[in-house]
């Protein structure tokens, strides 16, 4: 286990993963993940395809509950409270830990309603127009859509749709935002817009982002977790955390050879 708790010293943690094992059915998909995520930082998950980045990410807001075969062992502490404890309500948790998906998935509703939806179902009592405007502004989309809030969210371009999804997540005033390859369906310009956005959001939110793009990881993140997968005796593959550290250490002086090879593109 290359997680070196002395190399990352944190006084305060938002999320802390302890000995996390995730199973799909009877097969172990990811084993023994230990990560501490500090507040108001961007943490990037990188690693080859199938090593379990999305799986771990989905554990953080219990979206894995929706996959019947998925099962979690170990603990995830959110502000010191185990989110897999019986007393924690996943519905409440997901309002605090928002998620943005790989493929933009706005609802087939108006831009306004896309954002108002989450607020309404969570019993928001404030000024809805104001909330919609603030969220769109924070997601750097307001100027592009302010005259067409009645338009369907699906009528936007892919990059705009993704920013709408980010705005939708922000509207709930979450604490943490999880992003699973948010730019993989976007062109370079939209990607840069989303990255700028992440930089701005960092002041208020804690962000965990999965990415396959090394430059992106090094541009946007403060900490990086490198995952890898190794074959099991049963012929399957199991993912594990190779190394977790400050991003510049992972990219410039990693402790593990595999990390070095992966970040420099000489992996495999």
């Amino acid at each position, binding site marked *: 286990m290359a997680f070196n708790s002395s190399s990352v010293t944190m006084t305060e943690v938002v999320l802390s993963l302890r000995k996390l094992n995730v199973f799909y059915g009877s097969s172990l998909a990811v084993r023994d993940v230990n990560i501490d995520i500090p507040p108001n930082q961007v943490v990037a998950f990188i690693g080859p395809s199938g090593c379990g980045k999305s799986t771990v990410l989905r554990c953080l807001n219990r979206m894995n509950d*929706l996959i*019947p075969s998925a099962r979690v062992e170990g603990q995830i502490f959110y502000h010191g409270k185990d989110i897999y404890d019986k007393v924690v309500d996943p519905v409440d948790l997901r309002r605090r830990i928002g998620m943005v*998906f790989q493929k933009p998935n706005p609802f087939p509703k108006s831009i306004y309603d896309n954002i108002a939806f*989450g607020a309404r*179902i969570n019993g928001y009592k404030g000024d809805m127009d104001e909330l919609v405007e603030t969220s769109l502004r924070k997601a750097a989309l307001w100027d592009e859509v302010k005259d067409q809030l009645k338009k369907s969210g699906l009528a936007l371009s892919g990059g705009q749709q993704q920013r709408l*999804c980010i705005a*939708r997540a922000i509207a709930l005033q979450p604490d943490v935002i999880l992003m699973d390859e948010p730019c993989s369906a976007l062109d370079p310009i939209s990607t840069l817009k989303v990255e700028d956005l992440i930089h701005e959001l960092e002041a208020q939110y804690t962000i965990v982002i999965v990415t396959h793009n090394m430059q992106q990881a090094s541009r946007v993140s403060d900490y990086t977790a490198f995952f890898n997968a190794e074959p099991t005796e049963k012929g399957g593959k199991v993912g594990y955390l190779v190394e977790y550290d400050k991003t510049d250490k992972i990219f410039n002086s990693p402790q593990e050879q595999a990390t070095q090879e992966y970040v420099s593109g000489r992996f495999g």
Partner: protein
Amino acid sequence: MTLPSQAFQDDSLDFKELKFFPDLPKRYKIDSVFKFASWAAVVIALSVLSILLIEVAIDGLSMINWQFLTSYPSRKPADAGILSPIVGTIWVMVLVALFSFPIGVGAGIFLEEFIADSFLENVIEVNIANLAAVPSIIYGLLGLQVFVRWLFPLTQGRTIISGALTLTLLVLPIIIIATREALRAVPGSMRQAGFALGATRWQVVRDIVFPQALPGILTGTILALSRGIGETAPLITIGALTYVAFLPPLSLEGLHSTFSVLPIQIFNWVSRPQQEFHLLAAGAIIVLMVLLLAMNGIAIYLRNRFQITR
């Protein structure tokens, strides 16, 4: 044959081993055989249908006039009309729609959104598929026993409500299956987006999945109802009448009225020897078809109306 051998030289695959026999003429011949076969199938299907329609139209169109639509059935063909069967059909179908839509859609939502992939769901799924295939006369026998006899205190026997409940049983499996298909067509990413925003399962269903599935659900329901509208056997079994010379009162009392419906009237008329009654039957068939087409028209209208604009 020349292969770009140089390009492949380093490859471990030996491309000289691969041999293709395109034989395009033969493949095109098979194409045209199938094209002809499917064209012939269309012609046969359409011509049988149009012969049927033309024959009915020749016999029946001249029968349709105001007197035919507003008179009660009669022993004298010249006086006979289809007022009470039309009204009976409308009564029954409205009731069937009121009963079957909420129950069918509710059951579909429960199976697809709340207990999907569970053992219980698999058991119910198989049973519903079987129910959809049960011959309609069996539903008639069931209705006779349950609604006409056991529930006599509620239904008063061979009444509109018994008929409507029997047809409800008949169309329910179709509505449930159509609802589930429509729900299944809503992408999983929509549900995930809802859950990730802190929605409960019911909120996801009500606000996101159901609105998107509604056009499909409505279409499926109306197509199921138009199957119900043409059913004769189950209603004969529960004892709908063929001569009804009054209209049910437009109140709860009406539910306990005896009734007739168009298919039963048609069945009765065509089984008589006199030619005049056959013409009356043809007229009634045209009216029934107009009703059917109107329902399908409504289905198309509703689908377009609720279709979420992209």
